[in-house]
């Protein structure tokens, strides 16, 4: 279930003794323990957060997550911006996957304002969401292998991601921040020849993914490091609010694309990617298969979407768009789990309150702090990446 230096298999999660508050008593002056900070300047940390580790030898005794290094106060900034002005800033909440922010924001707003998005725009949104999932997974796979010391996968995966970004650039005009899913629709049809180029990219991805499977997933050392590491018990899923691949790898079928079909997902044919061992390896494998599923979904979308159509519903003048008062919650399945926007409108041109629910919020704080205890320092980075945490969505 877990592993530690001496390979003692009994449960060491209660070692050392915990006090009434559930924390261990650490006397640093005893020189028995060492305080170790990983981050914010640390290459093994995704994004910018820090872990305050208390270690005994190579074993982590206690961990506290510190976030806030990337806090920009989005939720406050949005309160003093008109709805349309929030549109360029929402994508900045999560850099690897801006599109889910754009979608959740737009759909929450459209729901409150009673706007019906045209068919074509829905297809294009579905397409960008899947492309986004693709590139995010590709970046993650580089991080996961990198965290265990294999640089070569990261090189390939980032190349593949770059290809997807090129397609994004053609479609949306932006590489990282696409600012494509405007409330009411999207900002452009597919450029000429886009499908062919995308298909080429997908083939390259599939080609490299089979290599990555051979080099990373059929790798003795990678298995040694990841199998049995970082176990998540299925009973924790509700307790910690775990969603997405982390839950699916634990055998809990949770996928918003299936559970609450949005956009055109009800017209796409796919099965949930599930795992059962719930360790780092399984989670990695679930994500790998999910990545390939995205490839398949993009092909399906191309096959099913119409050639032309309206891309934007008529909306009120965006310069003074007043959204009807009300509250709603809009969610989407991102690579890390449930992404959601909780929007409160008071009927003015400015949102009253927008709360962004990023999956990392639960994964990187409460869950990570629990999982990290009694692991090896060397595994901390790999463990963290296996939860696919991303700090900016914790602190926004």
């Amino acid at each position: 279930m877990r592993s530690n230096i001496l390979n003692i298999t009994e449960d060491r999660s209660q070692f050392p003794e915990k006090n009434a508050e559930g924390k261990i008593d650490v006397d640093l002056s005893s020189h028995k323990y060492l305080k170790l900070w990983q981050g914010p300047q640390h290459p093994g940390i995704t994004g910018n957060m820090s872990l305050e580790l208390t270690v005994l030898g190579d074993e982590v005794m206690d961990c506290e997550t510190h976030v806030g290094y990337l806090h920009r106060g989005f939720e406050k900034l949005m309160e003093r911006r008109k709805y349309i002005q929030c549109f360029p800033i929402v994508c900045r909440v999560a850099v690897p996957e801006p599109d889910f922010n754009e979608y959740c924001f737009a759909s929450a707003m459209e729901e409150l304002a009673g706007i019906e998005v045209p068919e074509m725009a829905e297809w294009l949104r579905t397409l960008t969401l899947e492309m986004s999932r693709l590139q995010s997974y590709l970046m993650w796979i580089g991080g996961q292998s990198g965290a265990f010391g294999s640089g070569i996968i990261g090189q390939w995966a980032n190349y593949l991601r770059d290809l997807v970004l090129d397609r994004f650039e053609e479609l949306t005009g932006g590489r990282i921040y696409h600012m494509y899913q405007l409330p009411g629709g999207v900002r452009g049809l597919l450029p000429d020849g886009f499908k062919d180029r995308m298909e080429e990219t997908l083939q390259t991805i599939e080609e490299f993914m089979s290599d990555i499977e051979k080099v990373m997933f059929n790798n003795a050392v990678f298995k040694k490091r990841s199998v049995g590491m970082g176990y998540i018990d299925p009973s924790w899923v509700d307790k910690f609010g775990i969603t997405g691949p982390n839950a699916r790898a634990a055998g809990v079928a949770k996928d918003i694309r299936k559970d609450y079909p949005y956009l055109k997902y009800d017209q796409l044919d796919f099965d949930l990617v599930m795992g059962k061992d719930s360790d780092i390896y399984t989670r990695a494998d679930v994500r790998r298969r999910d990545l390939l599923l995205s490839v398949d979904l993009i092909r399906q979308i191309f096959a099913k979407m119409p050639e032309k159509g309206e891309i934007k519903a008529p909306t009120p003048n965006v310069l003074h768009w007043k959204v009807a008062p009300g509250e709603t919650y809009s969610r989407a399945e991102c690579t890390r789990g449930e992404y959601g926007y909780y929007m409160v409108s008071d009927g003015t041109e400015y949102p009253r309150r927008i709360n962004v629910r990023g999956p990392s919020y639960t994964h990187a704080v409460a869950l990570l702090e629990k999982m990290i205890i009694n692991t090896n320092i060397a595994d901390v980075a790999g463990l963290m990446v296996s939860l696919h945490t991303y700090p900016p969505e914790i602190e926004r």
Partner: protein
Amino acid sequence: MSLKDILSPFTAWKHVVKDPVTIKDPFTREAAERYRGFHKNDIETCIGCGTCEDICQNAAIDMVPVDGIETRDGDSGLRPMVDYGRCCWCALCVDVCTTNSLSLSNHYNWIDEDPDQFRYIPGVDKKEWDTNEKGWKKPEGNYELYDINRVKMEEQAPESRDDSFIEIVKGYSKEQALLEADRCVACGICTATCPAHMGIPEYIKAIRNDDLEEGLRILYDTNPLPEICGRICTHKCETVCSIGHKGDPISIRWLKRYIADQHPSDQYKEILGTRDIELNGKTVAIVGSGPSGLSAAYYLALLGYKCTIYEKLPEAGGMMRYGIPEYRLPYDQIDKDVNYILSLGVEIKTNTNIGTDITLEELQEQYDAVFAGTGLHMGRSTRVPGTDHQEVYQAVDLLRDVVLGKEIPVKENIVVIGGGNVAMDITRTLARLQKVKFGKVSIIATSLESEDIMPADREEVVEAREENATIIPGWGPTKIETEGEHLKGLHVVKCTSVFDEEGRFNPKFDEEQIDYFKGEMVVESIGQGMDISYFKGDIKENLKLDNRGRIIVNENFQSSIDWLFVGGDIIQGPDVIHGIANGHKAAIGIDKFLGEG
């Protein structure tokens, strides 16, 4: 763990013999066709409306003056300056641009040591990407961030209106007004162009907020005749409206009418807070109850002056009542505006002709100051042969007679000379009378100006044609053919241009092309003149005129005689909104004059 797990990773080595996927020369790599790079701006097309500044959530855009771009009607003379220390390249400024002048190139590269360098005025400061054709442009198709099409106004159908004087335009309902007001981008380009500088974006905003009382207050800040202006204003604001560059301009005039229509006149005092005005004991006489006179009276009354209006005709309103047909401006609406002004303690003496019933000198003695806004009530003649015939009429006279209820000698075929709004008014009025009298319409209106530069409002021409009047622009009259008591018709010649290169009136004709319009009656409507015969004696001596016979006034509309203020059409030419603006400024001037004295 199997042997396969140990061996299969080595397959990675097959890549060592493959070519690197690296971009060999990343320094000259071009971005995608749609890439959002640095800004470009077509400064000739740009009007400096500042909508880009409004939508920019980064406060990255400043509107700054630019050398070589003059401020003029419809162009603020400002151009956007972009701060790349703020810009996030969302391109909303491009999508929202009212003239489609702003776009982004796909150039992405800007490195500098000095952080203060990262701002420039696209299109003005030359940049290497100015000629770059690629880059982000507003998406094609029905992609607009606001509605560029005007909300349709319900009107009387031509069949039901061509024999009556019922008001044609029905006015906006609340839903329509909200939709129309929503289209406004609140740029304010219209404000300066409007002679009265009405707070147009502000009152449109009041409509959006459904705060019509606030809207009314904004209207009365600069314009005491909203019902009238809401119907017949020449709406210079709409001409320059920034939305008009790619769609229909906002129907500012009708929105103004919408605000005024929503309030019964008995609520005005409450809303405008004019219930109790303290008099300051000074008195002002106002000659003429046209827009300038009423406007001056209103603002003077607000300041506490006791005003008395002297009107020659039986009812107040001047040209608004006696020059504009009822189907455009119903009399009850004039009464509504006028009565409110009178209710503020303004006194009116109708049927009182200055010069005959009472002289200016007497007014000077009785009052502290005098404002003269007597307007242009004399028709001008083309002076072509035959204009002295008895069947040749002046449009202003006929229009006045209609209002006064006099019998109009309508003939079966009529020719109208003129292409302005007055010409359209008389054409459509006579057409109605023809329809009543003969059951059919046979009237021709002809103008010097060709169709595209006709001074009349576009919708006037369209509506006139809907009412079966014939409009034939581009012809100049040469001779009226008469035969004793009877009039036969009008000879015309093709007019090729009206203004010379310097913009002066200097028509050119093509003598080859001639035409002949048959008719038993000719109405001239080529402009009006003023009648200032009431200035007599010393006053006439001391009053300074310019070389074209116009009274010289200063910016407060004070003439060379300090107690005499002059405004309205006789200063500014025929235009209701100018008249209102004059009256307002004269009121301020009088207050200044009397306050000092």
